[in-house]
């Protein structure tokens, strides 16, 4: 057996024993080391992909064009204003080749058509990842020095939201997510500041709990707290997973803390004859309660609007005295409610109270048995209400809304992974963390206060998308590069009419001057649009304008003086600056012109596909019925509407026909002659 030292010496001697040989060996080593860099370059991943691409395009019909577009070597997009250095196009070579639409394998897939180009914005602005990297692993995954892996396509719309604050047609998921942040009241507890200095505002309007004993029983509160969705499947109230004693104590505190409102506890008028169920149901229908309130039918489908709370089991929740007072005038209990003051007669109030009171579910409270509350329970309940931050969303008398009750989410989309505690078995990425937090917040610790929301998988993804859009970049981008959101104005109509409009909650459905809902037409220029007698009659008894529409203007039982007040205000104030109201005569056009208009209506422009003039012959369902448009609309409005509907009401569905002045005038002449019959007006 040889000794190792001897062996080493011999190797050393063979290589470097002779100076000439040593020189040769060292030169060889130098050459080899010099070859390492070119060899690494030659065998690099990106070269491999470029070669693959060249062999892919070689067999295609437009190989020469594709070859001409191809540039060998590392490609780079450098956008100093965004801090972007992207080399993605080194491997993703065919991104802009329209003819590669059939290639489904990456990295050669064509980029889908979007409104931006990679020269403008690079790649990582939308897809995240490490733009400057030149290996697949480093570019796409999170590595030691890089936290941002590629954003899954599932959440890619979040990137649009970094610059675009206003809703975009092409990003329904982002729009939904932003909507849910307000609708589910996330922002009551989590502050989300926006780059322009504002903040996302809640849109859910949770009810005040200061007078809850007027409205509901302690048993209902208990059942509701235990499982809000058992009462109403559409409820946005989350489940706090309260123990039985905790729910008992909170209900005890809320009832004891409630102060009565005069009028709420009054029992009904003397007439206690059983309400007629068909009359009540038709009153519910005529009042278009379903435009805002949903009811779950026997098949389990929720039918109706989502502006107000679901009414499937309202009789189990609301006390009849309270329901009566609410229907008489909701503004007494809640001054800011979206519910209009309907001015129902006492008889109508009784009818509806009976009808809604019958919507009960005995199972809901069957197992709820609560003993009288003890002072200790009430005190403990108060402690729980404070701890769970109930006052963040609801008004609770004697309690202040806590500030920053939950962590601020202003920059959640760029939260460093080192600050996150992941669950076992979870992927260590930000999107996974955010969506898990939304899906099952308590899985991150049973002591956490964040409640469990009832959300569909698509809603969780939408919320995750909206939150991921709140990145550092979204805040730090120059203002000139962002597209701001059109914030609702705080327009308030003046005077007595303004008070009336607030009382009837017109803004719940109609928008005026940038404030209000989109369920009904924008009324900003209503005064230029309609004729005074028609408006007066409509406010008194709203008829049907669009045959196929489910949601319609309800009848508010306005008094004559109230109608006059509103009509005056609308006719004077809501005028367009585009044209003079009286710039066109409302009649007296030559018969030839009227006849020409009729021809145009039925042949050239085929308006009958959407509008009805002759209620017997025409069938168009989409636009409003025009059988009496001559007594409804002002002639100048008709003319300008025909010329450009979208200019009169942004977003109008009627296409712009690029009508000549002559055609528009002839059609106006014809339409002004359609005065309709009085019979139709009354038919509704």
């Amino acid at each position, binding site marked *: *057996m*040889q000794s*190792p030292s001897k062996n080493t010496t011999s190797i050393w001697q063979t290589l470097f024993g002779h100076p000439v040989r040593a020189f040769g060996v060292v030169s060889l080593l130098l050459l080899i080391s010099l070859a390492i860099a070119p060899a690494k370059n030659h065998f690099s991943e990106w070269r491999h992909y470029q070669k693959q691409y060249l062999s*892919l395009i070689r*067999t*295609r*019909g*437009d190989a020469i064009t594709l070859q001409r577009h191809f540039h060998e070597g590392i490609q780079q997009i450098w956008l100093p204003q965004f801090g972007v250095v992207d080399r993605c196009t080194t491997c993703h070579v065919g991104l802009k080749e329209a*003819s590669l*639409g*059939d290639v*489904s394998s990456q990295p050669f*897939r064509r980029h*889908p*058509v*979007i*409104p931006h180009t990679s020269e403008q914005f690079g790649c990582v602005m939308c897809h995240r990842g490490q733009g400057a990297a030149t290996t697949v692993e480093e570019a796409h995954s999170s590595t030691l020095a890089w936290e941002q892996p590629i954003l*899954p*396509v*599932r*959440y*890619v719309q979040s990137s649009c939201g970094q610059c675009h604050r206003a809703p975009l*047609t*092409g990003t*329904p*998921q982002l729009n939904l997510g932003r909507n849910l942040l307000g609708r589910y009241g996330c922002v009551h507890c989590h502050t989300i500041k926006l780059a322009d200095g504002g903040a996302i505002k809640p849109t859910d309007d949770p009810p005040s709990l200061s007078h809850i004993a007027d409205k509901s029983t302690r048993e209902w509160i208990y059942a509701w707290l235990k499982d809000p969705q058992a009462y109403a499947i559409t409820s946005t109230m989350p489940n706090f997973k309260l123990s039985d004693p905790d729910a008992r104590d909170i209900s005890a505190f809320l009832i004891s803390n409630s102060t009565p409102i005069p009028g709420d506890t009054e029992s009904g008028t003397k007439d206690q004859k059983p309400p007629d169920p068909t009359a009540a149901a038709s009153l519910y229908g005529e009042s278009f309660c379903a435009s805002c309130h949903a009811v779950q039918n026997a098949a389990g489908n929720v*039918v109706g609007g989502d502006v107000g709370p679901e009414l499937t089991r309202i009789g189990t929740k609301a006390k009849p005295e309270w329901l009566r007072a609410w229907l008489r005038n909701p503004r007494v209990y809640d001054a800011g409610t979206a519910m209009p003051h309907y001015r129902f007669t006492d008889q109508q109030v009784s009818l509806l109270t009976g009808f809604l009171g019958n919507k009960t579910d005995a199972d809901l409270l069957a197992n709820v048995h609560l003993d009288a509350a003890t002072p200790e329970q009430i005190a403990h309940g108060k402690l729980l209400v404070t701890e769970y931050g109930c006052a963040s969303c609801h008004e609770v008398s004697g309690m202040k809304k806590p500030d920053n009750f939950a962590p601020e989410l202003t920059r959640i989309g760029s939260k460093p992974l080192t600050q996150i505690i992941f669950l076992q078995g979870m992927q260590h990425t930000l999107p996974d963390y955010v969506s898990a937090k939304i899906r099952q917040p308590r899985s991150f610790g049973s002591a956490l206060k964040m409640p469990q929301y009832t959300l569909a*998988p*698509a809603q969780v*993804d939408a919320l995750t998308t909206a939150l991921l859009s709140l990145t550092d970049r979204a805040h730090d981008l120059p203002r000139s590069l962002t597209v701001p959101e059109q914030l609702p104005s705080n327009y308030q109509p003046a005077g007595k009419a303004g008070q009336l409009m607030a009382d009837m909650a017109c803004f719940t459905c109609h928008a005026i001057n940038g404030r209000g809902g989109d369920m009904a037409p924008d009324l900003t220029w209503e005064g230029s649009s309609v004729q005074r007698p028609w408006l007066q009659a409509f406010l008194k008894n709203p008829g049907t304008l669009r045959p*196929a529409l*489910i949601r319609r203007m309800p009848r508010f039982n306005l008094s004559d003086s109230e109608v006059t007040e509103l009509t005056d205000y609308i006719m004077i104030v809501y005028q367009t600056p585009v044209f003079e109201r009286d710039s066109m005569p409302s009649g007296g056009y030559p018969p030839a012109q009227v006849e020409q208009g009729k021809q145009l209506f039925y*042949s*050239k*422009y*085929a308006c*009958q*596909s*959407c509008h009805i003039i002759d209620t017997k012959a025409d*069938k*168009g*369902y*989409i636009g409003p019925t025009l059988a009496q448009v001559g007594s409804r609309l002002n002639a100048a409005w008709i003319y300008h509407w025909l010329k450009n509907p*979208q200019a009169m009401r942004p977003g109008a*569905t009627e*296409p*712009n*026909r*690029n009508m000549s002045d002559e055609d528009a005038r002839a059609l106006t002449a014809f339409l002004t002659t359609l005065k309709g019959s009085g019979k139709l007006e009354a038919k509704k």
Partner: protein
Amino acid sequence: MSRYLRMLFVISLIFVSAGCNRRPGPASAPKPTAFGTALVESSGGKQIGATGMVLAQPVVVQVNDEQGTAVAGALVELSGPPGVSFDPPSGLTDSSGQLSANIALGGRAGRYQLTARTLTKAQKPVELKIEEIALGYQQQVGFQLDDKYCARCHNPESTAERVSNYDNLEVKPHPFTEGDTLNKMTDAELTAIIGHGGPALNKSALMPPYGYTLSKTEIEALISYIRLISDPPYHASGMVYAQK
């Protein structure tokens, strides 16, 4: 020398153990307790979703036996092209013989063929094909435009929120899924009829022109949406390239 060998052995052992992947393999599918002979789709097929996103409705498949009664406890495995994710990817059918899975489509706009698979008692596979459509950005824009401007007449189906105008029209519009007719029209023809109305192609004037309401990009988006949802599928005419 043996010391060298031993050291080499130890070093190589360290390398081998370091190289070993300690990540656990994919969770193994549960053992079926029953077997069926047929797979049927209960719901969730032919949905129109968006690239990368979860479909609005879960896909529900049912396992039946020879008599056509539902089989509980049969193993169903779901698979699809790369990029499609299933939640769960496999599972046993419930008491009504069904398995329900939420599906997120891949990043490429187009049609996705998904496969549900179960084994008979004789270990023979039974397969069911389910098709879903993923809209990309452009088609998504087209879909929204369709919903606002076109669907009221071109979609014969009425919903609670939208009553169809289809039946009211003397000349019936073509539903956008009607590939037999629409696939024969070129992009230029569709652009003309959308932009200039029916008379542009000697068709009904009941179809109004949208060229002064929609932008060029919007009309392109609409066409790309129509092309994607057409049934039978649309194949662009012109040069067909050899595929690798």
